[in-house]
């Protein structure tokens, strides 16, 4: 353990960076960008430091706690465990990519500042161990995202931004009531008011039926963020209208906030209610997988296609989460990281296609492989990862999720497998239409991937391949925390984890 407020710095460094960038004179757009990249890379380095010093056990590590509002038992409490570790790394990785990758058309300074503030918020969500703090960062994330979509997005940006903001805010309103109810019920029972996650998870103080309502309040908020079918309608709009960096972050990091919320708060605080309501969420997850895939198939807009594929992929994560088996949860956590990397990369690539051709219509593209073979190759790798081809990261996650859920929730796992096939269908079909054939018209002059773009893609592709070939180090670090969580759920319900629980499954067969 290192004697340095690592996590606090991880959260506050981007926030301070945002402030610093905001103070840069308007004319110095380059300076703002350089500063932004430096800060986000610095944050990524800190995340790597956390990885290096991370001890493989189930505890929260690097915990830093400062009293904030004493009277209310509210504190600034951050901590890291196996579940959040890789999400923090993912966030650290994607923000520099998002800052460097796409071109900014105007007002670079504000753009960079908002992105950095967004990073601070995302890091805060993944690290917060105090419900009040969690809610604050959860809401803070909305504001920069709103401005990014509304300020730098495409034609229907204002509508999409507003829809995103209002949807999420409606959900979090319910969650706030849930958080408060939980805290006050705890106070009524134990005599002291606290918003500390660990205390509230340990000292359960409510009846089953109450727990169910509270879980519902949290779950709706998370389900909107994930998004779980039928609360997903904000997502295609937001993703499609957002600027490329916005889409990358939205898909790569923001959607994970919801699934992470289910794991960290849903299961931790309401193991019994989560268990009771699991069939509902599993069903919605599976519906999401199939629905997302089917709708993606018929999209004419490449970006919208990727957006709907997210709905399907996140269905897998929900499925893994509510399987309540070690493999399922492990797969879910891994899949969060995988989806972040591969869908982030996909959005980046689609963004570059748009920068070159000023269209995202699949019908207007074609034959790009001939003129831009490297571009096509990178797209292929990323897409195959998204499909779940063995040897790439997507496979490991999906496979674990399916094994884990098959053991305990057979009836949901079987139809979900169809989602894998459908993913192959819509992505390969899209690839075929965009890259195969003879390039005509403007497609014939499609520029090849630049060196800068290759540099940006390199870490993403490396992560895709590494986690596909050798996921063991990642899974080893995730496992203890997941095991503890699964144990926590089963203890509360008086059930046991079915199947070969001890065998940490997966890997690369």
């Amino acid at each position, binding site marked *: 353990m290192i004697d340095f407020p690592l996590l606090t710095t991880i959260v506050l460094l981007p926030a301070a960076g945002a402030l610093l960038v905001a103070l840069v004179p308007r004319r110095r757009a380059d300076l703002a960008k350089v500063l932004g990249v430096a800060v986000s890379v610095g944050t990524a380095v800190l995340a790597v430091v956390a990885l290096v010093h991370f001890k493989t056990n189930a505890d929260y590590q690097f915990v830093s706690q400062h009293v904030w509002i004493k009277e209310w038992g509210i504190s600034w409490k951050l901590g890291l465990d196996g579940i959040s570790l890789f999400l923090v790394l993912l966030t650290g990785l994607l923000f520099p990519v998002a800052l460097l990758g796409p071109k900014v058309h105007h007002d670079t300074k504000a753009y960079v500042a908002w992105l950095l503030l967004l990073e601070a918020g995302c890091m805060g969500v993944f690290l917060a161990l105090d419900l009040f703090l969690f809610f*604050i960062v959860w809401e803070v994330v909305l504001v920069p995202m709103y401005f990014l979509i509304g*300020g730098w997005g495409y034609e229907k940006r204002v509508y999409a931004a507003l829809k995103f903001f209002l949807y999420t805010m409606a959900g979090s309103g319910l969650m706030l009531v849930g958080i*408060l109810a939980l805290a006050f019920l705890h106070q009524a029972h134990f005599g002291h008011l606290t918003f500390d996650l660990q205390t509230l998870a340990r000292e359960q103080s409510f009846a089953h039926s109450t727990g169910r309502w509270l879980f519902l309040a949290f779950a709706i908020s998370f389900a909107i963020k994930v998004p779980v079918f039928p609360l997903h309608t904000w997502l295609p709009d937001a993703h499609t209208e957002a600027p490329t960096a916005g889409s990358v972050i939205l898909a790569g990091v923001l959607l994970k906030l919801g699934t992470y919320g289910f794991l960290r708060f849903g299961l931790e605080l309401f193991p019994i209610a989560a268990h009771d309501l699991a069939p509902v969420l599993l069903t919605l997850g599976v519906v999401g997988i199939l629905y997302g895939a089917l709708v993606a198939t018929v999209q004419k807009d490449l970006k919208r296609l990727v957006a709907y594929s997210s709905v399907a992929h996140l269905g897998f994560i929900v499925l893994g989460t509510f399987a309540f088996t070690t493999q399922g949860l492990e797969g879910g956590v891994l899949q969060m990281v995988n989806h972040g990397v591969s869908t982030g990369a996909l959005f980046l690539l689609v963004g570059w296609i748009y920068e070159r051709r000023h269209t995202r219509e699949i019908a207007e593209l074609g034959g790009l492989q001939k003129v831009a073979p490297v571009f096509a190759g990178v797209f292929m790798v990323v897409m195959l990862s998204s499909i779940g081809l063995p040897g790439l990261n997507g496979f490991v996650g999906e496979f674990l999720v399916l094994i884990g859920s098959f053991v305990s929730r057979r009836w949901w796992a079987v139809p979900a497998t169809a989602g894998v096939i459908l993913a192959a269908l819509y992505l390969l079909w899209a690839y075929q239409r965009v890259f195969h054939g003879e390039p005509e018209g403007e497609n014939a002059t499609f520029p090849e991937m630049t060196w800068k773009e290759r540099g940006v893609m390199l870490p993403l592709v490396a992560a895709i391949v590494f986690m596909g070939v050798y996921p063991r180090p990642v899974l080893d670090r995730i496992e203890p925390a997941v095991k503890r969580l699964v144990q926590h759920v089963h203890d509360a319900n008086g059930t046991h984890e079915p199947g070969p629980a001890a065998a940490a499954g997966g890997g690369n067969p």
Partner: protein
Amino acid sequence: MPLELPRVEWATILPETILVVGAMLILLGGALLRRRLPAWVWTVASIIIAAGAMVSAWDLWRRVSHNHQGGAHTAIANAVVVDGFSVYFALLTCGAVILAALMADSYLRRERLNAPEFHVLMLLSASGALLMAAANDLIVIFLGLEVLSIALYVLAGFAQRRAVSREAAMKYFVLGAFSSAIFLYGVALAYGATGSTNLGEIAAFLRASVSTHAVLLGAFAFLIVGLGFKIAAVPFHMWTPDVYQGSPTPVTGFMAAVAKAAGFAALLRIFFSTFGTHRLDWQPLIWALAVLSILVGSVLAVVQTDVKRMLAYSSISHAGYILIGLQAATVRGLAGSLFYLLAYTFMVLGSFGIVTLVARDGDARTGLDAYRGLGQRRPGLALVFTVLLLAQAGVPLTSGFLAKFYVISAAVEAHSYALAIIAMLAAVIAAFFYLRVIVVMYMAGDEADTADADPIRVPFGAGLSLAVSVVATVIIGTILAGPAFDFARHASILRL
């Protein structure tokens, strides 16, 4: 027959005295020296007087909060009470006076209005607000209410050359007088039911008798209606949009902050502490008022195209949120309402300050169009407004969020889950119209520079006022959250 003469403890009403004497001095000075002194002198004088009142209130605060319950006491034949509650409102009101005076300074010069009279009326109005918060007798509350209101009627019509301002004054006067009369009926009924107008004696009477007389219920209803007008709660809000829109904008800010705070001071003291024993009788009324205010305020704000009018409706919905604290009828609820008022004062004064500046000559440009492209033309001003609007929407890291958090937590603690959920969902509706202004400022495309013949200027005083508002909004929402919560909690020390 020898009379029992009351002892007048001047120290206890020192803030009020400073305001009134100061106002009279400005009145005299303005009458005798008008031609010889520039307008800013009166602003400075007004600020010094308000600051003096603030200092004396702070002295009282130290005494009251120092030894917990012992510091709170009644004075002047039990007509006035000094407790955390009254001093809190004194501090709040004086702060609002200072911010409004700073904002009004450049406004009065821009619109060529008489400076001394404006400040005199504002100080007198503030003294009425202080009296309402410190009153321990329904009659004294009425006295404060009238002093507050009459000065405000005149202020609403202060821009005499503009017809809307005259209309606002007339409407406010007629409806305000009407509500005062209803309040007086309530006082009469309360006297009939309990035999006293003194809040302490009424409370003692009610503690001794459990039964609820119909006359007492009538008193509740009339008092709620009378004060409901002042705080602009639905369904007594009809005057609010017209009056807020028509009044000179700095007056609107002052009115929204001080008149509402004073109305709530009276409402909270009368119902929470005096009628606290009969809370089951009045809680449903407040519940309905809160829900209606929140919903109607938010929904009607959505369809407004005038920013000033939109802010008027938003202030109606804020009143609903503050009522949530009263509805809970717990110490946390009371503290929540007080904290909300603290946050609200800065948010609303800052917001109307921006409207003052953007409206420019003639106070006319208050439509949404005037804000088009503000993000490009005046990025600083747009940023300040954005922060204030987000705070009003209840986005974290601002005082507005903590205010909502506080009252909602009081509702949840009191098991009013339905109210809490309605309030949170209505916050989404409210967020919509705040965001709409932000959209217009930043995302409305490039056809911005329509009115650049008349650029927006930010004079020093107005800038200072805005800076204080926005910094307070952010700081209370972040680092000073703990102390601010403590401040509100100390203020909820009521002398029962």
